[in-house]
């Protein structure tokens, strides 16, 4: 992992790794989104998909060096998304308490089984957890490996 020592050192890894990462990182992100969305039909769910989404961003940092990526996908961006995911999950849980019987009431219509839009509240909850876990783990990695670029005084 190339922490920068001076200004003349080339950042990141070799050119083969950079080209392959450019091709593949989008597909890894798409695979993570697929695991999150089909959480109620196949094994997986919010936690596994969220960690795969974080993995695609970590691959970008490892291949290109920390300085270039944190100009585009910065620390405040991922911290904002983590909070949004948590608030969204709480709103879904509170909808049952406000509009009906009890906390976490499964109130959206459950369609025909084995389709994508079915099972009520489970699909939005999986999406919220996927966003939250992915953004949180990416923020932890930025703090552990690239502290110089994210913390202002």
């Amino acid at each position, binding site marked *: 992992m190339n922490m920068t020592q001076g200004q003349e050192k080339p950042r990141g890894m070799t050119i083969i790794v950079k080209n392959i990462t450019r091709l593949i990182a989008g597909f890894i992100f798409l695979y993570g989104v697929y695991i999150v969305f089909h959480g109620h039909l196949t094994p997986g769910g919010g936690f*596994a998909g969220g960690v795969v989404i974080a993995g695609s961003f970590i691959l970008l940092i490892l291949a290109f060096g920390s300085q270039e990526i944190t100009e585009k996908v910065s620390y405040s961006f991922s911290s904002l998304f983590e909070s949004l995911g948590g608030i969204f999950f709480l709103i879904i849980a509170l909808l049952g308490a406000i509009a009906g019987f009890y906390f976490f009431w499964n109130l959206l219509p459950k369609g025909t089984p084995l389709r994508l839009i079915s099972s009520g*509240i489970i699909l939005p909850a999986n999406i919220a957890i996927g966003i*939250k876990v992915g953004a949180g783990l990416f923020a932890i990695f930025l703090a552990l490996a690239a502290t110089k670029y994210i913390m202002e005084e």
Partner: protein
Amino acid sequence: MIELYLLIIAMLAAAIVAIEIKDLLAAAVAVGLVGFTVAIMFILVSAPDLAIVQIVVEVLTVVFFAAVILRTTHIDTTIGKGIDKEIVFPQVCFFIFGISFLIFALYALKDLPPFGSPIMKVANTYIKEGLEKTGAANLVAAVILDYRGYDTLGEATVLFTSVLGVLAILRKIGRK
């Protein structure tokens, strides 16, 4: 079931290597091997959900360990030659504790149902009525998000707190 026993032997050997070896990056790789054999054992006991989560979490654990080891030293400087006198007392204490823990664990594990035939009182209700009442085909997702949603809320809170803790510890304070 012969594969389970072979994997148990590989897992214990990798664990002993991970805590005794002198080079720290090799210890991180050995921890990765322990996690990988645990994930394969999850597949062999018919738990594909757990296997997916265990593999991706173990890869991230090895990446975090490597990130920290490359910021600090590479070699464990505490393992010298011969018997270290200062850790004889903790080792003797651990030996006594380990033997007594194992004896009590044998008493406790005798009361569990035998391996391969669990008592599934509540689980039979979940399996019979899970599809009609929640509409989800994945029964584990139905359990963690509908029947036991509070536990998922608690887990989201714990993960949020741990992210907050890491970012608070690694902040630049200034002149300290």
